[in-house]
């Protein structure tokens, strides 16, 4: 009986240890997933906010890595701006207010679509102006060339020579 009891104790002890190992393994399994879950929170938080934030940041330039949009960039700067925009969306600011907020602080350079104003007129109309200049000079050039072709009459000697050549062929009856 005494022995039995002892064995029982041993079994219980082993069971506890097994339990401990199982819990430990379980924790090992679950801890990383907890960590991932934490990092993913901002996206899952509110899909509507995230959608609007993404749509806005697609057209905004990351000032650190200038060829990337704030939506694409993983730079610390873009993280901060995305967080700021999320907060402003939650504070019920409209898109225009948010963009104005950023332009006030970082200038037009954050916009991938530059606004039309005196300093950007060349940017907006330069290509059209270049096209008009190019197309205009092409037309002028073609007209002048056609006039040159039309306007040069054959001289008396050239005419006679041509006539002679034609007559020569007539006689041969090709």
């Amino acid at each position, binding site marked *: 009986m005494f022995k039995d009891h002892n064995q029982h104790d041993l079994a219980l002890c082993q069971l506890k240890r097994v339990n401990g190992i199982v819990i430990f393994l379980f924790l090992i399994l679950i801890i990383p997933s907890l960590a991932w879950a934490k990092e993913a929170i901002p996206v899952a938080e509110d899909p509507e906010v995230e959608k609007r934030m993404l749509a806005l940041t697609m057209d905004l330039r990351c*000032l*650190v890595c200038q060829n990337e949009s704030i939506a694409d960039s993983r730079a610390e700067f873009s993280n*901060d701006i995305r967080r700021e925009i999320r907060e402003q969306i939650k504070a019920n600011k409209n898109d225009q207010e948010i963009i104005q907020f950023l332009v*006030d*602080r*970082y*200038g037009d350079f954050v916009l991938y679509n530059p606004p039309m104003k005196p300093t950007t007129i060349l940017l907006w109309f330069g290509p059209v102006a270049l096209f008009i200049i190019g197309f205009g000079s092409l037309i002028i050039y073609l007209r002048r060339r056609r006039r040159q072709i039309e306007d040069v009459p054959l001289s008396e000697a050239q005419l006679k020579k041509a006539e002679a050549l034609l007559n020569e062929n007539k006689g041969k009856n090709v």
Partner: protein
Amino acid sequence: MMRYLIPLFAFMVLAAFLLVGLTLNPRQVPSPLIDKPAPVFQLNHLHEPDKVMASGDNLGKVWLLNVWASWCVACRDEHPLLVQLANSGIVPIYGLNYKDERTTAMQWLKRYGDPYTISIVDSDGKVGINYGVYGVPETYVIDKKGIIRHKQIGPVTVESLEKTIIPLIIELQKQA
């Protein structure tokens, strides 16, 4: 003659544009905050966390706001210059410790010298966004009325201090 001169002229115009382009630095985005009131803030001191500094406290004097962090390598380059400038007594420098750890920041200052009249803490970078900070270090010259007069993007250099910042400070100090 004209048919040779026109392409030459067009080439020279293009070359002039490209030459000017070479001297521009795309990293230096002109700040829209120049000649605008410095954004207001209320931030805790770095060394005495229970004390608060407000941007309005400096009205009536010309001051520099230097944005720095212990993780920023370029800050180490400019730091000896800031210490020198602070020792010269020309202008008070206030440090905005940007997105940093308090203890590392304080260690950093102990190691490299502390040029700041007061260091304030912007741990989440919110004030940084208001000032249009997009890289560290950045330095703002703010006049007696609390208006931003100059923004140095990147580390201050001997050249930028001598040619731009110090002359500007002396001129601003003369103003009422």
